């Protein structure tokens, strides 16, 4: 297919238990996704802690578009498009910094860090020009939830809180890992490029079927307890929160162990400072519960993956070209935990990571694989017959079941059919 499907045709490509291979490889479908997903729905951009001081900025992205996240003099967070309103030159060429304004090197147009055009060279040639009509482009709506900043190019539509829906709760759970209730993104990002469609990454994040095979090489030599979480006898769950948001809920396994910090493969004895601060912040009973349950493993559609100890941001560049931006989660007031989180993250993820090098190999082989046209379908029926509804009304399944993929595609179809 080289023509974007009409709204009525998405149902021919997306069935309840299978999706068509062309969804991953057709450039016209990728263009349609940019319009209907990336440039419409809420997309995660950055974290407030990346621009802690007035005039701090960091360059981020929404799909292939470069976005400058700034904190202006008033302390507000802005998402500006990195494109001069004059001739389109990029106004910012550094990944981060502190600047009240951005001056375009082409004709010296200068923009304040809230997007206002404050001046241009030789202004007498622009007699009578209203500068307010020549501001930097901006992401239409900007909202944040617990420090996580999202942007939407749609002027109207669901609020961020409505978009997150039930998946706000795992974020609430995440920040409680900090004795001060805050996540900080301060360790810098690894940027891992893959020659594969972004949805292979999206779907793999809550795929609990693959770890036993793809990661057997590291589980075996590292004497890791992670493998068991994804075994046939595991009581962990896959969950579809709706709205395309999905989760692997490992809490049933951690609660069986009933050992604080076991989720991170350590003990409270090895983290005395952290344990003391958690007890002081939440009281011993609640702190113990938090430290048993651990952090969530949740994929916020379409691009924010909170993977227990690290955070991935998925960026699509082209139908077969994607980047995984990944960093260690850092928790305010938890320096001894943070050090270990950085060490574990560096070992596990990024271009040379013990886990992600193999995941990324699968993404690329899948992408090349689906270029073969028979069978036409990707089969996502695992656990469909044993899917059930949990006490809050969400679809759940065995940790190895494809509940998350089916949930993602259900939401994807809704977005693509929307006009």
């Amino acid at each position: 297919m080289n023509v974007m499907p009409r709204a009525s045709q998405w149902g021919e490509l997306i069935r309840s238990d299978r999706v068509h291979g062309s969804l991953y490889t057709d450039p016209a479908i990728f263009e349609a996704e940019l319009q209907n997903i990336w440039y419409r729905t809420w997309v995660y951009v950055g974290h407030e802690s990346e621009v802690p001081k007035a005039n701090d900025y960091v360059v981020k992205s929404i799909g292939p578009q470069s976005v400058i996240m700034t904190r202006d003099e008033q302390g507000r967070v802005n998402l500006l498009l990195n494109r001069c309103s004059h001739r389109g030159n990029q106004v910012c060429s550094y990944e981060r910094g502190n600047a009240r304004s951005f001056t375009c090197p082409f004709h010296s147009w200068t923009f304040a860090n809230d997007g206002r055009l404050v001046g241009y060279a030789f202004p007498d040639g622009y007699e009578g020009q209203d500068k307010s009509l020549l501001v930097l482009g901006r992401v239409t709506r900007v909202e944040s939830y617990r420090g996580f900043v999202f942007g939407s190019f749609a002027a109207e539509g669901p609020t961020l809180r409505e978009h997150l829906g039930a998946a706000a709760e795992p974020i609430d759970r995440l920040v409680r890992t900090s004795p001060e209730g805050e996540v900080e993104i301060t360790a810098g990002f690894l940027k891992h490029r893959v020659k594969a469609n972004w949805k292979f990454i999206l779907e793999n994040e809550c795929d609990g079927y693959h770890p036993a095979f793809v990661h057997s090489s590291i589980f075996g030599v590292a004497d890791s307890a992670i493998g068991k979480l994804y075994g046939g006898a595991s009581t962990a769950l896959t969950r579809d929160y709706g709205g395309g948001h999905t989760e692997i809920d490992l809490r049933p396994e951690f609660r069986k162990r009933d050992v604080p910090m076991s989720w991170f493969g350590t003990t409270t004895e090895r983290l005395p400072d952290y344990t003391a601060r958690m007890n002081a912040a939440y009281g011993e009973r609640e702190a113990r519960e938090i430290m048993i349950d651990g952090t969530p493993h949740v994929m916020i559609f379409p691009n924010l993956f909170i993977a227990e100890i690290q955070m991935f941001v998925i960026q699509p560049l082209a139908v077969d070209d994607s980047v995984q931006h990944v960093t260690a989660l850092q928790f305010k007031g938890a320096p001894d935990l943070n050090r270990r989180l950085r060490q574990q993250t560096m070992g596990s993820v990024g271009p040379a990571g013990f886990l992600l090098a193999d995941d990324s190999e699968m993404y690329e082989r899948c992408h090349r694989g689906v270029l073969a046209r028979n069978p036409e379908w990707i089969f996502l029926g695992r656990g469909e017959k044993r899917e059930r509804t949990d006490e809050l009304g969400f679809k759940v399944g065995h940790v190895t079941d494809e509940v998350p993929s089916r949930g993602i595609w259900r939401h994807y179809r809704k977005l693509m059919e929307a006009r």
Partner: protein
Amino acid sequence: MLSRESSSTLLGAVTAFLYKEARLQDEHQYEAWEALWTDDGVYWVPANGADIDPEREMSIIYDNRSRIALRVRQLMTGKHFTQTPQSRLRRLVSNIELLDQQAGGDIAVGSNSMIFESSLRDDTIWAARNEYRLRHVDGEWRMAYKKVTLVNNDKAIYTLSFLV
């Protein structure tokens, strides 16, 4: 400082060591490569520049000696799929300089390398500045420290799962 003559002899010995390391890496002789490390070896591939603090910020690789061993053991399983099949590799090592040489201590050595990788994904060219601290242990040279600064380490890079 050593005399000019002993410096030239040392440069020859160091060059032979770096060529050997390059060959072991290109040919996936993992255990022989691991044996080049001292017991306190540190293998560092920074991200986002050359001068980040690896204790505070993400690096592509920041292995202590036990993590170097783990990396090698994973490669040895034959089930580390990103290296099964193995990348085909050849690298050129040049611009070898003795940067700091103190009699009896570690010597600091610099080099540049360019690596051609052919993998299932595609052919990829990597380029790097390498900084070593080498130590003479029981009559053999060993690496106590190797820092590999990829020229493009501030950009999004493909999987780097061979020994760089």
